[in-house]
């Protein structure tokens, strides 16, 4: 199984953790990103993710490979959801297993940070007032309309 995957159905954390179990590992760190009910002062009711599937797979795999090299990791896995998600669902799951805890902590942190910055995946939030918006996109579109030149990167 590849170390980075996209999933269209709810994630089962226990099953993913079982994939990483390894008698050579003494430490396992897991990060779960959950769908939160508020963002930027707005009440969020749910969200959807849209991915560029082919590029997300290659970039996600690359991020895991980097983490394995940098942190002498034994095992790592990242699964990101696509499609429609309800509140409290797992949006992203990251697991890192290493001989010792320090490497596992640092690797998990590295993977989720890089995923957030580099993975070609987009999040649309739906709000209680009926609005919706693409996170990180709407503001740069807005500044473009007002100034005629986009300067403020997200």
């Amino acid at each position, binding site marked *: 199984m590849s170390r980075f995957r996209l999933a269209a159905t709810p994630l089962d954390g226990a099953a993913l953790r079982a994939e990483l179990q390894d008698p050579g590992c003494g430490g396992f760190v897991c990060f779960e990103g959950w769908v939160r009910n508020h963002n930027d002062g707005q009440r969020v009711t749910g969200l959807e993710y849209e991915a560029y599937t082919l590029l997300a797979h290659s970039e996600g795999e690359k991020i895991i490979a980097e983490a394995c090299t940098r942190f002498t990791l034994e095992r790592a896995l990242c699964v990101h959801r696509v499609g429609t998600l309800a509140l409290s669902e797992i949006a992203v799951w990251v697991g890192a297993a290493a001989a010792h805890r320090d490497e596992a902590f640092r690797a998990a942190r590295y993977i989720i940070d890089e*995923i957030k910055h580099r993975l070609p995946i*987009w999040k649309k939030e739906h709000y209680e007032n009926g609005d919706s918006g693409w996170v990180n996109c709407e503001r740069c579109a807005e500044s473009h309309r007002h100034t005629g030149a986009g300067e403020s990167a997200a």
Partner: protein
Amino acid sequence: MTAPLYGLVLAGGRSRRMHRDKATLEYAGQTQLARAMSLLEPLVQMTFVSTRADQAHDPQRAIYRSVTDRLSDLGPIGGIDAALHAHPQAAWLVLACDLPFLDAATLQQLIAAREPHRLATAFRSQYDGKPEPLCAIYEPAAAAPIAAWIAADQRCPRSFLAQADVAWLDLRNPRALDNVNTAEEYQQAHAQLAQTPAGEPAAAARQLHVQYFALLREQAGRSAETLHSTARDASDLYEELCGLRNLQLPRQQLRVAINDAFADWSQALADGDRVAFLPPVAGG
């Protein structure tokens, strides 16, 4: 009844910025004037060259039927006015002579879209949405308003079209109407066209598969499309699509992927490439 279509190549300009007669500039062994005339000939009933009175005996022009300006120094609108006046029964497909990338398909697109009950049929510029008056069809009914426009001391044919009853269309080949006004532009166009075999459409368009995601997908109204473009790189292509699809995100905030890998905006595009424009990401 639909008026017969005549062709007019405007070759009466003074080529001030070029410092030499633009009509006689050569591409792939053919002068611009000859090239424009040969593009028009199969598509219209008769072809004419528009000239100033003092060019009547110029050997490059004398081999063609001509229409001479009625008034001097009006610029292109004087040539259009003279043609509509000299042959009032005809509609005129008017062409500037300095369009080295113009291809037959673009003229066919214009003719197919002709709406004879309007004053004119014209393209809108790919770059700024303004009318393209020098690759357009003018109907006989345009004669009086154009004469009145000139009498009111107006000269700009683009402004004339902007306020007239015109059938508008979008260019399929975005470079077809790029014109050449300076010696430097001529050198560039010449170099590009020198590699094109004679008779082939100039500046061959590549087939490109474009993907849009998230906010760009919503703005474009589609998740993918296949199109033909002469854009050299992804940056040119994005600029072209901003106009075509009304995309509202500044390029500086996007990344581009070519054939499913992140790429530089300046990477040259090849026929069949898959190009994706990526808005700011938001994983996790």
